[in-house]
């Protein structure tokens, strides 16, 4: 695992992250109603995947590492899901 990634790849990922940062700032200046939050979170998730897969080497890691990574996010998702299933269904 973890064969050295080309320096160029890291620099391209960094440029992509900065472009996404500029994009998220620009979109926030336009009123899209509830879609502002959707777009902002979609861009944040895209940035997270770039950092996870390339900077954190998850892309080239073994499957056991993938399971550990997914487990953390899965339990976070369960916590949010169970809590919102209460708050979003109160009338």
């Amino acid at each position, binding site marked *: 695992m973890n064969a050295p990634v080309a320096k160029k790849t890291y620099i391209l990922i960094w440029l992509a992250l900065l472009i996404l940062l500029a994009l998220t700032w620009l979109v926030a200046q336009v009123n899209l109603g509830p879609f502002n939050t959707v777009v902002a979170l979609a861009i944040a998730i895209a940035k997270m995947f770039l950092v996870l897969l390339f900077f954190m080497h998850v892309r080239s890691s073994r499957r056991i590492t993938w399971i550990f990574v997914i487990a953390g996010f899965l339990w*976070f998702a369960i916590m949010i899901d169970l809590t919102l299933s209460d708050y979003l269904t109160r009338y």
Partner: protein
Amino acid sequence: MPETSSALAEQFEEMPQQQEAATLGMWTFLATEILFFGAMFLGYIVNRHLHPQAFAAASEHTIVLFGTLNTAILLTSSLTMALAVRAAQAGDQKWILRFLIFTILLAVGFLIVKGFEYRDDLREQLWPGPHFRTDLPREAQIFWFLYWSMTGLHALHVIIGIGLISAMAWMASRGKFSPAYHTPVEVTGLYWHFVDIVWIFLYPLLYLIHRSA
């Protein structure tokens, strides 16, 4: 005999196995960190759902320039950290140290910007409590409570990160790392990138809601 390197702890058969175990250990810790920060993100989601207008009004007082600048600084520090790990893998002693020092300087820069921002926030009476500014709805204090605790906890992680990266820089300056042994740099990198990911989400949630309204 397998390897005789002194960096290999006795419970492991070989270096790759040791590195694998250390990486999994760090990811286990990061899973607990996801839930640690996750509880605060959940508090944010629930309270924003309960008080949407107050959250929109409150977030207009965050300083977008500082927030955006700090996002760019942290993203860049993730690049220099990744390049430090790469230099360690390649055994390039000079550049391991240089990239670690660049990362530390960027992290310190982040804290300096945050310090100026906190000073301005306090001047604007955005600390929840009896002296909170009166032109905002009461529930805006919940947003600002979350702002101080989430960015505060994140800043604490940045400070711990500076400590860890400094320890790596010290080890690198003593020539402790080689292509066969660089796991501490790799694992410190994982921690640092995680701190970056937390900020990637704090930035839109704290600075960018209802900017256009």
